[in-house]
């Protein structure tokens, strides 16, 4: 194994490696965000278990909505791609440096756009409910 490969296999960058997104494709940024939102959701659900009615409150509830809806929308994209293999195309040998892998082109990018639209719509609905509707209902 070459030195560079060994470096990545040992994952010496650790968590800081998630934030190495500059110059990478958008999927890499979504990967980092998916992990961060996942950890934030775990930080919310643990106190929510022990005190069932606990919620962070008005604006924090809206932020929680943004975090959850992002994780759900991106998670659906990942499920379609990784579990069902939708949109990734047939594997081809990449001829560097001009050819981009088929897995980050084509239909997969439509799925990405759809997941972002789903995220925006769901986040708006959740935030609208948390900020405007719930306080009126005495929540």
């Amino acid at each position: 194994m070459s030195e560079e490969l060994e470096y990545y296999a040992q994952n010496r960058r650790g968590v800081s490696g998630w934030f190495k997104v500059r110059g990478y494709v958008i999927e890499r940024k979504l990967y980092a965000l998916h992990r961060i939102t996942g950890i934030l959701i775990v930080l919310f659900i643990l106190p929510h278990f022990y005190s069932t009615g606990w919620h962070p409150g008005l604006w924090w509830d809206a932020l929680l909505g943004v975090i959850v809806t992002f994780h759900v929308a991106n998670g659906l994209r990942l499920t379609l791609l990784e579990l069902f293999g939708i949109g990734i195309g047939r594997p081809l040998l990449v001829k560097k440096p001009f050819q981009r892998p088929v897995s980050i082109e084509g239909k997969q990018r439509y799925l990405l756009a759809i997941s972002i639209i789903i995220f925006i719509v769901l986040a708006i609905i959740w935030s609208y409910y948390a900020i405007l509707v719930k306080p009126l209902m005495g929540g």
Partner: protein
Amino acid sequence: MRESTKMLLHYVTALIIIVTGLIHLLANNDPNVGKLISSNTYLYLGNMAIFLAALLYHAFNGIRVILIELVPDKCWTKLIGWAILLIGVVTYIVGFQVLLMALGLI
């Protein structure tokens, strides 16, 4: 359990969370449909029991994947797997007990 089976369960629980989580949100926030769900204690409890199990598996498996990626070591991977399983089972028992108490069943 094979790593591929664990990850298959990760995706399956994600889909279960979307359905049961939506029911949970409706039951606690919607005055019309939510009332139908929350008025039936056993329907609500059944949904919450499935939601809790799926959520805990998904959450703790996510943490496990992050931790074993941070330290790629065979012994560490095994240790983390068992520790996460133990914490997950204990959290499910405590969470289910809190749920029963909140519903006034114990």
